[in-house]
């Protein structure tokens, strides 16, 4: 089941009403209902992979007890077993075919012909997310931040909680589990904020990202026939498409959790207003980047063991982050580009320049310097997105080469493309609204007059409903991050 489907629009109110009106008397009832709802939500996509989700959950639950052992050696053994188990699952379902094919290519270079066995199995949705949830639990116990949980239902719900099951935000055990272990009470303000986030998230996904996808797909499918200027616009449009798509998803997830009385971690903080690449990574897919920071970068020594170790760690984290997104060289290249950008700041000791500030904090518009910083960071990020969006590394390089060779030919070509003119119509409001909201991603600032607020809700709902109903008899478009 996906958030922009009719099924989910029916599913959510049913769960909401059952949760607050029928199963609200006891904590165990609340969690039991949410666990059933979460498995139903996942099983709607594929009931066969429910088994994998359950086994993965049960294993990490057991490892949690092993890691809690006072014997440090034994604890470390269980920690490794958990990592092996989770990476093993990922390896089989996500990376097996990639390594098999690459090995074949390697052997071919040596003149040896092989016939690799390839797995003909679909990638279970959300596998990269729920395995990371499981690992976060075991790591937190190992680091003393979390105690093993007695109630299996609570733990299973932590891994499979439906708002974040398929595409995050990747929660931390020490953040979500305490909320799961307390009975929730309905909070009007929290529910209203949740509804607003759901509406805004759906709008970003269904109306903006899906509309931009039309232009982006067209440009990336026909890039050989298009000029450089159009290809640049294609990359920019994809930057906004993926932002609308994924931040939209995160908003819906956070909003849904709020409706049920939970506060999830933030995942996006207006990343395209970042003034450098380090700030971008503190604002883009925050739950993943902080996961890598806490469970990989810092355990490897972070930036405290000298420059060389910092450089190594930065590359490891960004390359793995790229590889996490997909088993393909273009994702690794994407990670590499970001590593280079980040490293430049790290070596100049400028990577923490914009930690706790927001652009134009005390002004309505950015200063010229800030504007230059925002545009140059965005240009860098958009350049890297070409590698992310392309189907292969070769295609990405070819796309960039075409930008170079035909940049000044027919500059008006973009506007003759179907949907071309609309691209600006979709991007501009997103930038303006984000600029207005930039101080707090979790609370959407709305007019104080109730009439105006309701009018905004209705307009957003209409746009969304129109779009969703259009595809009523067909499949709604999926979220980009579902493939990871």
């Amino acid at each position, binding site marked *: 089941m996906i958030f922009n489907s009719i099924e989910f629009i029916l599913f959510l109110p049913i769960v909401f009403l059952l949760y*607050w*009106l029928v199963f609200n008397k006891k904590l165990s009832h609340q969690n039991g209902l949410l666990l059933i709802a979460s498995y139903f939500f996942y099983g709607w996509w594929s009931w066969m992979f429910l088994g994998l989700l359950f086994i993965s959950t049960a294993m990490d639950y057991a490892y949690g007890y092993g890691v809690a052992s006072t014997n440090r050696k034994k604890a470390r053994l269980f920690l490794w077993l958990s990592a092996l188990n989770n990476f093993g699952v990922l390896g089989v379902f996500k990376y097996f075919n990639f390594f098999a094919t690459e090995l074949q290519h390697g052997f071919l270079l040596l003149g040896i012909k092989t016939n690799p066995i390839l797995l003909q199995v679909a990638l279970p949705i959300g596998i990269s997310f729920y395995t990371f949830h499981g690992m976060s639990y075991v790591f937190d116990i190992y680091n003393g931040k979390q105690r093993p949980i007695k109630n299996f239902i609570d733990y299973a719900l932590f891994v499979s909680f439906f708002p974040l099951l398929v595409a995050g935000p990747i929660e931390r055990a020490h953040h979500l589990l305490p909320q799961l272990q307390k009975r929730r009470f*309905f909070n*009007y303000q929290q*529910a*209203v904020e949740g*509804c607003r986030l759901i509406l805004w998230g759906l709008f970003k996904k269904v109306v903006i990202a899906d*509309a931009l*996808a*039309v*232009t982006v*797909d*067209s440009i990336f*499918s*026909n890039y050989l*026939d298009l000029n450089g200027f159009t290809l640049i616009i294609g990359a920019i449009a994809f930057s906004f498409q993926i932002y609308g798509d994924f931040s939209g998803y995160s908003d819906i997830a956070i909003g849904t959790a709020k409706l049920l009385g939970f506060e999830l971690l933030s995942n996006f903080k207006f990343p395209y207003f970042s003034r450098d690449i380090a700030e971008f990574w503190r604002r883009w897919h925050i739950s993943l980047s902080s996961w890598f920071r806490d469970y990989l970068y810092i355990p490897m020594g972070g930036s405290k063991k000298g420059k060389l170790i910092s450089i190594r760690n930065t590359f490891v984290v960004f390359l793995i982050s790229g590889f996490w997104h997909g088993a393909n060289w273009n994702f690794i290249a994407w990670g590499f580009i970001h590593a280079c950008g980040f490293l430049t700041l790290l070596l100049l000791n400028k990577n923490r320049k914009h930690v706790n500030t927001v652009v134009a904090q005390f002004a309505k518009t950015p200063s010229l310097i800030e504007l230059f910083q925002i545009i140059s960071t965005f240009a860098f990020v958009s350049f890297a997105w070409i590698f992310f969006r392309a189907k292969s590394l070769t295609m990405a390089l070819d796309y960039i080469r075409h930008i170079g060779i035909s940049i000044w030919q027919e500059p008006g070509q973009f506007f003759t*493309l*179907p*949907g071309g*003119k*609309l691209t600006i119509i979709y991007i501009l409001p997103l930038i303006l609204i984000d600029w207005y909201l930039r101080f707090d991603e979790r609370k959407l600032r709305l007019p104080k007059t109730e009439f105006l607020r*309701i009018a905004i*809700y*209705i307009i957003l*709902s*209409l746009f969304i*409903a*129109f779009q969703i*109903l*259009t*595809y*009523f*008899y*067909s*499949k709604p*478009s999926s979220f980009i991050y579902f493939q990871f």
Partner: protein
Amino acid sequence: MKLFISKTLFVGIIAFAFLVAFKLILPENKNYNSAFVNKLDILISHTQERKIVLIGGSSVGHGISAEQIQNATHLTTINLGHHAGFGLVDFRDLVLSTINKDDIIVFAPEWEFYANPIYFDTATLEDLYNNSHYLELTKNPNYKSFKSLILKKTGIINSLIPNHSPCRYDCYNNNGDIISTCGAKPLSITDYSVCFDYFNYELFSNTFPFINRPNTLIVFPPTQKRVYSRCRKQFDFIETQLFKTKLLILDSASANVYDESCFFDAEYHLSCENRILRTNKIIPKLIELMKISN
């Protein structure tokens, strides 16, 4: 809790009321893209009859006259030629499910389909029902009642597209030929390149298996003179590969080369006068085919 539910319901009901109002008030938009709905409807309504079906992109819609063929052969002829950007693969199975053994197919794909049989342009499809989902829609018994809402949506989108588009919804005749260009002043013709280096016959044949039927006639697309001279090497290669097979091919790529002045507007769009001439070349072959299959 009650306040929250009542307010949410209030917003939901108002939004729903607006949606219903939109459905009732907005007129259905009729345009080039939405015309494809009608073409498929025409085809489906003739499923049981013996017929001639013309398949291809807009070069077929503009460049072959189904009406003329029907008059000459006395067989129902349907022109399915539509914008090549819709792709041919998506609706292939639907079309084939309506084709009987003795039906005749005239297959005239644009050069793009030789290089990439699964070619399509998602941007164009958005105007219709978002890629191949449209086909799922047509198979759904409820699609007709829902069709109007979608046409309204395309109406909103198309209101942003210039009105001088030569092919509007009402510019098709009952056979599906584009007739709005007939008698109209030609627009400027754009140059383009189709010098694709890649052609894989096996892939082409696997994608369009109906080309191997004894009743399928293959016709090369109408090509501008300058484009032909530029891409001749590639066209020759494709032609040679096709001639090596047992496929029924009307003539040659060079026989479909026309001066730029013969086109109405875009790349493959022949003017009405030249469509007549081109169709006249196809008719004798079709009559011959009919005799054989009888």
